[in-house]
């Protein structure tokens, strides 16, 4: 068996296990998800985009402060964080985009990606 084949089989086993795990989700969680979905659909009609450009500046300041905090504050020795995880953390903190910008930007960046894809195809 080649390594590629065994990798495919390994991934397929994980996929099967994950699929089965969602079939056995706690009924309480299923119910909460259903309620959340209905609420999301009910609120669709009343939502409208908010534009708050000042948040870009605030987000950059916050991201800089957060990254500085991570760089300057020594990790608690009990926190056995791997170097990879630490880099992952830093990468996320350095991103200055606040939650709110996704409200408007998700779709515009999505459109931009799609346009690039069409141009390249």
């Amino acid at each position, binding site marked *: 068996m080649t390594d590629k084949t065994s990798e495919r089989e390994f991934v397929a086993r994980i996929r099967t296990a994950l699929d089965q795990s969602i079939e056995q989700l706690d009924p309480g969680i299923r119910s909460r998800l259903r309620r959340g979905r209905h609420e999301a659909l009910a609120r669709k009609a009343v939502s409208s985009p908010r534009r708050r450009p000042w948040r870009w500046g605030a987000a950059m300041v916050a991201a800089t402060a957060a990254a500085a*905090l991570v760089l300057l504050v020594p990790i608690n020795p009990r926190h056995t964080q791997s170097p990879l995880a630490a880099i992952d953390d830093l990468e996320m903190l350095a991103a200055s985009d606040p939650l709110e910008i996704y409200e408007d930007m998700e779709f515009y960046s999505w459109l931009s990606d799609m346009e690039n894809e069409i141009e390249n195809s």
Partner: protein
Amino acid sequence: MPALRSRLDSFLAAVEKRAYRMAHLATGDREEALDIVQDAMLSLSARYGDKSEADWRPLFYRILQNRIRDWRRRNIVRTRWRTWLGFSGDAEDRRESDPMQQIPDQRYRPDREAMHGLAIGDLDAALASLPLRQQQAFLLRAWEGLTIEETARAMRCSGGSVKTHYHRAIQRLRHLLEGHDDR
């Protein structure tokens, strides 16, 4: 528009459980995971529900991954502040630092759920121990079946980064679950 609402409802019903599992693996917390999924559903339906139906799935996963990433960022900052301020909530700190402890032990009952030789409790612990980007790349590609390009858009990174994160995730998972050499 009842027809649109009905289609959106069907779409969200089809993805909500997977989304919850992804959010739960990333946060280790049931309530946080439910909040993240609901927020993603709300954002998709409120802002993009009238977009092309073909775009819903990748858009939904982009929103979901953004929400997870925001949660992780807030959590990192909160943990660092607590360290800086000298707060030592020993039990909670240990829980936050140990991915094995972040998997609730009541819901999946790994002793009763060995699946094709893979206990879901072991799998959850292995997935939860991955760096977030590796976890996202693996779940979106291997489980949700997104293409490299779709995964890259959902994760807001390049296709090359997706391949790297995915490859490292596979190596790590095989090492953890099969004792496979990940060097």
